[in-house]
């Protein structure tokens, strides 16, 4: 039991470190404190970085050569990601496309389509998004209502998608639609990929509690998609969607900072009646809990890497990470504000420790308990897929979709 790379892994890590040291600094986005770049400029920088990675053979390394990768073992991807993570690079634009859309295309598109799209995706020439959730279909994605009607060799799409990250800068998207409302809900779905610049698509940003807009609503009015862009058979879109979602579960990970280290730093700086907060036993009880949770996730990640390193398929660790880290984020931020007492409510960066980081976190934390599977759905998944518990009673599996009660929405 050790943390050491195998000789081959160590060699690869050294190689990556050298390459990053040479190339990463000019793409670093940490030039201002957590302030975002001008959106267009950021996107340009991101695309340039992705192209540089691809050219050096570090993008989508586990994919086959013909699609832009080099069939590398998964552990190399993990090593690369660890090393890349030491820099602050504009990589966020590509995670959904490469993490979810790519594998779905790889599994269901024709060879020709794969050759046409995947290498461009890998280089960042095209950016992809995923269009699944709808206002009335969140945790229950299969309850979606967007219609697809066949007309000649095309399909006509109408309806609304929501929570689409990056829809405004994406070139292509994958989408699941309802092609037949007269059969049970999982059986009437059909899956496509489509050009996000198609006529009839209207993209509107969603403002979150924190004031940021990381997601979009996407409205479809008679959007035409060629039948050739269908993935999987007509009516078998759910199976395709499952492929995408399984990849989402693997991609969803640790909630963003502030981390326990930030909170410990705050506790060191904060004076309570009894002295520094870090010395207060009540504070310590909380810090200790979050510390061991953090370490548990960290070493759990090392266990997963070990499995990858041995060529095994990792289990449901990502679900644990999400469930634990999102609530931890919310509770730590709330607690940090308590440490600041009356002044904890201040959202003035120049008047607040750590420039208001904990207050910001308090506002964006609720989103992380929901995004990529709610706490509740992930606990279902752990109970059902890991522990083998039976599903809840399902009333929606045998009824025609249009007969299902759907409430006020």
């Amino acid at each position, binding site marked *: 039991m050790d943390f050491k790379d195998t000789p081959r892994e160590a060699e690869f890590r050294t190689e990556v470190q050298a390459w990053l040291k040479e190339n990463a600094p000019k793409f670093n986005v940490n030039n201002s404190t957590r302030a975002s770049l001008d959106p267009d400029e950021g996107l340009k920088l991101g695309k340039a970085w992705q192209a540089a990675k691809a050219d050096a053979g570090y993008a989508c390394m586990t994919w086959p050569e013909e699609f832009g990768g080099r069939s590398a073992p998964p552990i190399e991807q993990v090593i690369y990601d660890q090393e890349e993570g030491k820099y602050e690079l504009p990589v966020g634009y590509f995670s959904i496309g490469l993490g979810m859309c790519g594998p779905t295309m790889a599994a269901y598109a024709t060879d020709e389509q794969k050759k046409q799209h995947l290498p461009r995706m890998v280089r960042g020439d095209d950016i992809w998004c995923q269009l699944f959730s709808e*206002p009335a279909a*969140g945790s229950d994605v299969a309850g979606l209502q967007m219609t697809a009607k066949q007309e000649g060799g095309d399909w006509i799409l109408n309806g609304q998608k929501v929570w689409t990250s990056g829809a405004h800068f994406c070139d292509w998207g994958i989408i699941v639609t309802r092609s037949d409302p007269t059969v049970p809900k999982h059986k009437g779905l059909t899956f496509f990929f489509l050009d996000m610049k198609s006529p009839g698509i209207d993209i509107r940003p*969603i403002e979150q509690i924190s004031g940021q807009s990381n997601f979009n609503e996407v409205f479809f009015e008679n959007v035409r998609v060629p039948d050739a862009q269908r993935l999987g058979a007509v009516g078998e879109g759910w199976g395709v969607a499952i492929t995408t979602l399984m990849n989402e579960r693997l991609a969803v990970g640790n909630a963003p900072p502030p981390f326990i280290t930030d909170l410990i730093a705050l506790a060191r700086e904060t004076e309570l009646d009894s002295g520094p907060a870090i010395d207060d036993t009540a504070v310590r009880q909380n810090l200790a809990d979050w510390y061991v949770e953090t370490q548990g996730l960290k070493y759990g990640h090392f266990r997963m890497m070990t499995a990858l390193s041995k060529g095994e398929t990792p289990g449901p660790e990502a679900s644990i990470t999400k469930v634990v880290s999102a609530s931890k984020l919310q509770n730590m931020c*709330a607690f940090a504000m308590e440490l*600041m007492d009356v*002044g*904890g409510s201040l*959202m003035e960066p120049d008047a607040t420790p750590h420039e208001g980081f904990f207050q910001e976190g308090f506002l964006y934390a609720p989103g992380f308990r929901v995004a990529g599977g709610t706490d*509740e759905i992930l606990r279902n998944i752990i109970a059902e897929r890991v522990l083998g518990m039976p599903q809840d009673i399902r009333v929606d599996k045998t009824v025609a979709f249009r007969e299902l009660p759907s*409430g006020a929405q």
Partner: protein
Amino acid sequence: MNFDFSEEQKMLQEQANKFLADRCSLAAVRKILESDEPYDRELWKGVAEMGWTGAAVPEEYGGIGFGHLELCVIAEELGRANAPIPFSSSVYLATEAIMIAGTEEQKQTYLPKLAAGDLIGTLTVAEGTKAPRPSTLTVTFENNRLNGTKIPVADGDIADFAIVVANSSDGPTLAIADLTASGVARTPVKTVDPTRSHARVTFEEAEAAQLGDAGDGWNLLLRVCDRAAILTAFEQIGGTASSLRMARGYALERYAFGRPIGSFQAIKHRLADMYIKNELARSNCYYGAWALSTDAADMPVAAAGARVAATEAFNFAAKENIQVHGGIGCTWESDCHLFYRRAKLLSLNLGSLMNWKNWLIDRIETGSRVEESAPA
């Protein structure tokens, strides 16, 4: 045994509820959230006309002759509506402080105008992001002059005057400062709850008048804070009830997997927990109301109990209301965050939960509980 509000008080509650439903919808609250307006002036005027700002002020000082139980009833409704007005600053803090510590002249000067809502007052003690304590106060009050900076000051940008907790050669002392006078600079500051306005207020040789005895300021502050804690706790149970009502409504109308999400135990048990926490808080609040209205010797314990229970209930309900709503709950457009923000503001504005828990045990241990406390 008559441990409940009276019929008249319940009628007042109903009346307040209707008035606020009409004049203070969440859409109205959102207007303040999204505009530069620091508070809802029309609502403030209406609330004053209803006599609420003078509910606990004796008639001789222009009040309407209600008492603190009526003020508790009103507080719960203001919390339920998430009202964006300087009620807590002006009524729970400034008015109470002057009633407790003011000279006859000060009472005559301030109370009628406060009761009428013509004057907005506030009280300020915090100096940044640490718990304010006598030993660390940097704002000074000497020779009727204030110097130093207070932040955050609730309603500091709109209040006519502030009661300032400042250090003097005699120790902490309360001082009343005209915030519109020279020597006072105030800048609005953002907080987690933009529906309640806050400011940084800097005093530079600003004129101010002593309130209460010199050196008695901290003691007075604690007394005022206990009273405000009970009133705020009623706002918090009102806010909890609203959060629960929103979550319940959504859980009934939102369907997933062919059934209302409220039929799933993960949701329904969480709603039950919100309800349980709020009932526990409500019962603690009633004890606080009794203590406040009878000036019971057990008030410090009653205040801390109400504060702790109501803070936990509102924080929990506001947070889990968002979770029950799922994605839509995390949007700006949804009203869930109005209560999430307010819950956090209220849980900090009179000092942190951790401190109040400490104080609760302190107070139990120093034996402030005497005969007057409720039967065992």
